[in-house]
């Protein structure tokens, strides 16, 4: 293969679907990758699986597959397109079953392969310590999931088994993109410089629209065309791991050195040591070169040996968060909102609501970065949120804000309240040998 073409069909679970269809139809792709697992998505999916043993995979899996599968597999006049995705979440096997059913309905003969082995909950011991200092024993039955970040291994095995669609659970985001590069170009698992370059491609693509003009526009400073029809990115990659980032011609958005640079550093700490299960990538010497409209060459990535341990993300139940909001407008809005805040906090104290932590702020004034002197606004919104061990306490936060209607300062409007269970995430490390990625067709 001379040039490998990999597209990015999703940057998170709820992402737009039409740009992925556009890539499948017009991207002339070899692979379309959907990255849909944020830090705690899998813990939430595990909860869903507890209530429905056949569930626990991405809620948009079905809709995405219905739309793109018609372009997948061997085709008479176009490249063979394959799909790789972590939409299996907490249940890759059921997700694969679901995709097979959809392929059948559409009359398509596709090989759907699941990658399992990321669920390591049974391997953990009570005395193991999380990065937040707590032991698993202290969390007890509140622990709901433990998933190792797998690397390329299971996906490579699936591609060797001629998978048209590869469905995984937790896999490191860049590995979803590195695996097809290793498979197509025959890169060795210890070819660190190429693995470093392939990981850069994965890192640039893994948030989809964030490298092609999404999450970038700042009117007057950084203008982007047609965000409503943002095109998702694709990479044209050569056998050395050199790559051009681009998008489908005619789609909205923009691929520029600036969009690529923002994404290069996104969620990176030390750019010389970006750790994945496959390689320690070095992005510190990366540069970008314009190669025409919406075409940017990425170069200068390197790599060295991979970590000996794998990161494991542990999800656990950690109480409830209750929240309420109320707006105030017109002259004196801030003073009335501040009075309302004081009233709610006093009421919560009088009622003995047990809170681990509470926060009360004025949206438009001090909710994001703390207070600052500014002119009186036309409107302001009070927000009170608290984390409580008990649901019954958390529920009273929003209720108390709502009672401001008839009991608080004058002119409050638009009350809202919410309640959610907290699924917290912490991490620990496991020796690589303890984890066993494998496929199930």
């Amino acid at each position: 293969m001379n040039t490998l073409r990999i597209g990015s069909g999703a940057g998170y679970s709820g992402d737009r679907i039409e740009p992925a269809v556009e890539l499948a139809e017009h991207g002339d792709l070899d692979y379309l990758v959907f990255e849909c697992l944020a830090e705690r998505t899998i813990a939430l999916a595990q909860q869903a699986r507890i209530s429905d043993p056949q569930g626990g995979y991405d809620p948009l899996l079905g809709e995405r597959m219905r739309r793109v599968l018609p372009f997948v597999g061997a085709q008479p006049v176009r490249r063979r397109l394959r799909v790789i995705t972590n939409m299996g979440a907490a249940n890759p096997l059921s997700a694969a079953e679901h995709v097979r059913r959809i392929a059948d309905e559409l009359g398509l003969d596709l090989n759907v392969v699941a990658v399992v082995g990321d669920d390591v909950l049974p391997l953990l011991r009570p005395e193991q310590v999380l990065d937040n200092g707590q032991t698993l024993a202290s969390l007890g039955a509140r622990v709901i999931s433990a998933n190792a970040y797998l690397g390329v291994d299971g996906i490579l095995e699936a591609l060797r088994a001629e998978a048209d669609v590869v469905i995984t659970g937790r896999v490191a985001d860049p590995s979803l993109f590195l695996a097809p590069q290793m498979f197509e170009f025959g890169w060795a698992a210890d070819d660190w410089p190429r693995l470093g370059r392939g990981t850069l491609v994965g890192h640039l693509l893994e948030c989809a629209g964030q490298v092609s003009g999404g999450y970038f526009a700042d009117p007057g400073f950084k203008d982007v065309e047609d965000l409503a029809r943002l095109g998702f990115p694709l990479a044209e990659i050569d056998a050395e791991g050199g790559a051009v980032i681009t998008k489908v011609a005619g789609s909205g958005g923009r691929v520029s050195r600036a969009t690529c640079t923002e994404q290069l550093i996104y969620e990176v700490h030390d750019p010389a040591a970006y750790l994945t299960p496959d390689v320690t990538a070095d992005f510190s010497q990366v540069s970008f070169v314009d190669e025409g409209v919406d075409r940017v060459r990425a170069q200068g990535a390197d790599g060295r040996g991979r970590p000996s341990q794998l990161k494991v993300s542990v999800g656990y139940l950690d109480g409830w968060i209750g929240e309420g909001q109320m707006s105030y407008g017109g002259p004196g809005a801030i003073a009335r909102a501040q009075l309302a805040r004081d009233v709610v906090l006093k009421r919560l104290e009088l009622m003995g609501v047990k809170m681990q932590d509470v926060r009360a702020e004025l949206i438009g004034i001090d909710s994001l970065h703390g207070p600052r002197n500014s002119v009186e606004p036309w409107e302001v919104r009070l927000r009170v949120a608290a984390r409580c061990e008990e649901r019954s306490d958390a529920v009273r936060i929003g209720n108390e804000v709502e009672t401001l209607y008839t009991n608080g300062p004058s002119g409050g409007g638009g009350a809202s309240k919410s309640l959610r269970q907290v699924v917290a995430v912490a991490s620990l490390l496991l020796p690589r040998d303890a984890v066993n990625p494998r496929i199930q067709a």
Partner: protein
Amino acid sequence: MKLHTLAHSRTGDKGDTSNISIIAYRAEDYPRLCEQLTAERVAEFFAGLLGPGAAPVRRYELPHVHALNFVLPGILRGGVTRSLALDAHGKCLGSALLDLELTPAKGR
């Protein structure tokens, strides 16, 4: 002059740590950013959010893309999953930092 006129920014989160990129629009402004945007200055800017016990802010340089990367451990106070913050990811932090005032470049 505001940093906003010379640079752009994106903020990422991992656990309860934020990283904020500051990217010069023009390569010739990069040395000025390196000189004035020290880790200490960024820590001072966010002092009210970092709290007294937070680990030091770290700064990394990416000269070929004329960018700095600031890593702020602890600023997300428990991380996306537990935080009570409206912007639990801290996504807006980078935009706030662009309000920082720069002193004029030294004459050459």
